[in-house]
């Protein structure tokens, strides 16, 4: 019984949060990795692109809510998502035309593009705060739980409750669908294959008549969709605050690099590696330990790191991977 309680507590506080955070990071890292694979630079503006996408979705959600439209028990934000994606796609395509294209035509070095993307990041940063403000915004509606902790306890008679949030289920389902679609697109469609070809060998792709501007455009559209979906899911799960998206940049890049920059499978694996490390290292294990070793009464919470330091975990993993396997877990470079 105690062991069951331990497992339930573990699932509730570590496994489920890890899975949903991991899915969100994976979607974010996929966007970063696609840009790196095709446009060959690290896009520091990605976190704020997610913020913009989530913001656009939120504004649309509020409007739908004010009209009384609802998807109950699913959140209304799902309905607003296509609009959010379209708005974000327009934004990134505009940024590309206005900013990146200039440097691309000059064949600027990747490091210059990285700095340029930081500039874009600051602009987006300001833009999002200017439009929606710096505060927390709530836009989640619909059912909060698939199973609440109390119901779970009543049904099973266990002392520990397992709360399954509807946003967790939604995150996982949406992430699986999106990833499946993305892989199908990259591997099976002509456009996806030309993206892979372009990423593999740019010179040859050009010689094969592949139009680089088209590949770039489609990449940005896909990245906008990924960023908006990731941003919205994160916002539904936690809450929307522009600053958190800026902070997400670190774990997202850590995920993409750990998996191997440019490799989509790696981005997903990296997302889960980072998410689970963060959650397990910052979790106070006292409760679980109490069930497993009933006689042991530890003085502290058995928490390896305070949650305030959770970003240190991404940093540490990043450094270890760069030291021992610089190409990432799944050899990066091309899609």
């Amino acid at each position, binding site marked *: 019984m105690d062991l069951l309680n331990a497992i339930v507590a573990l699932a509730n506080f570590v496994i489920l949060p890890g899975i949903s955070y991991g899915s969100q990071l994976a979607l974010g890292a996929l966007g970063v990795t696609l840009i790196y694979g095709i446009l060959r630079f690290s896009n520091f503006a990605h976190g704020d692109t997610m913020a913009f996408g989530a913001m656009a979705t939120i504004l649309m959600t509020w409007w739908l809510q004010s009209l009384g439209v609802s998807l109950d028990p699913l959140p209304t934000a799902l309905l607003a998502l296509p609009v959010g994606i379209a708005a974000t796609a327009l934004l990134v395509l505009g940024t590309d035309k206005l900013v990146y294209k200039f440097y691309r035509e000059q064949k600027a070095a990747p490091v210059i593009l990285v700095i340029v993307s930081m500039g874009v990041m600051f602009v987006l940063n300001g833009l999002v705060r200017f439009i929606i403000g710096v505060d927390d915004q709530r836009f989640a509606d619909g059912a909060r739980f698939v199973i609440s902790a109390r119901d779970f306890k009543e049904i099973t008679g266990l002392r520990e409750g397992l709360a399954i949030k509807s946003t967790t289920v939604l995150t996982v389902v949406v992430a699986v669908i999106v990833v499946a679609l993305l892989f199908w697109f990259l591997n099976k469609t002509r456009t996806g294959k030309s993206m892979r070809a372009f990423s593999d060998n740019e010179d040859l792709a050009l010689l*094969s*008549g592949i139009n680089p501007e088209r590949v770039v455009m489609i990449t940005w559209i896909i990245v906008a969709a990924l960023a908006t979906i990731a941003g919205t899911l994160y916002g539904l799960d936690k809450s929307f605050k522009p600053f958190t998206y800026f902070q997400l940049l670190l774990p997202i890049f850590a995920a993409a690099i750990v998996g191997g920059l440019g490799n989509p499978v790696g981005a997903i694996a990296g997302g889960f590696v980072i998410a689970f490390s963060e959650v397990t290292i910052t979790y106070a294990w006292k409760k679980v330990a109490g069930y497993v070793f009933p006689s042991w009464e530890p003085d502290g919470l058995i928490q390896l790191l305070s949650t305030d330091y959770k970003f240190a975990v991404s940093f540490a993993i990043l450094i270890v991977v760069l030291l021992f396997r610089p190409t990432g877990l799944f050899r990066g470079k091309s899609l």
Partner: protein
Amino acid sequence: MIRVENLHKHFGGFHAVDGASLEVAEGTITGLIGPNGAGKTTLFNVIAGNLPATSGRVFMEGGEITGLSPHELFHKGLLRTFQIAHEFSSMSCRENLMMVPSGQSGETLWNTWFGRKRIADEERALRAKADEVLEFLTIEHLADHKAGQVSGGQKKLLELGRTMMVDAKIVFLDEVGAGVNRTLLNTIGDAIKRLNTERGYTFCMIEHDMDFIGRLCDPVIVMAEGKVLAEGAADQIMQNEAVIEAYLGRGLKNKVKADA
């Protein structure tokens, strides 16, 4: 077919191509030879749009093509291969060939989602064509191998195969024969000859193997120090004093003469 007028390509103070003018006539297999550093590959890079010209102009069938990008030239029927074979390493040889022809329905996002049937038909036709090309090049057994894993010579064949997937007008071959064994070289030579006679491709090829050139090329253009030095039939060129000098240097030339 192709006319190059007073073309310059400078890298800082180094004049890789220094006022080259030449013409590649339609239907020929024109050889381009010259000592290392003569500017042959740079000339190819400028013509094929991989590098911008410093000055000078390039014409194709009377129209100016200076400064067009590689994919635009591709659509005009100008193709090239690389000295070191390029391939999409993570795709199979067949997929590598199937990448080439553009302007298909599968390229628009709309059709990707809503025109499945038409795309499937096109894919089938493409696949048949790719298999035909692989057979022509006698590498049909490599169809499903990853292109990154086949031998250097086979990659060169694949490069040639790429030009066969579309109706090219002119193909620039950059040392297709380099690092390829004799048997494979003959296969490549036969393929070039057949493409030239049966399908009317014009070729312009950089080559060092004199036998290979003698067998395939007429005329031959010689470059040295960024300029065109001589032009003529292969056997004439090999007798040309200036050419021998450019290749061997003055001292050596005299030594060769003395030995003879």
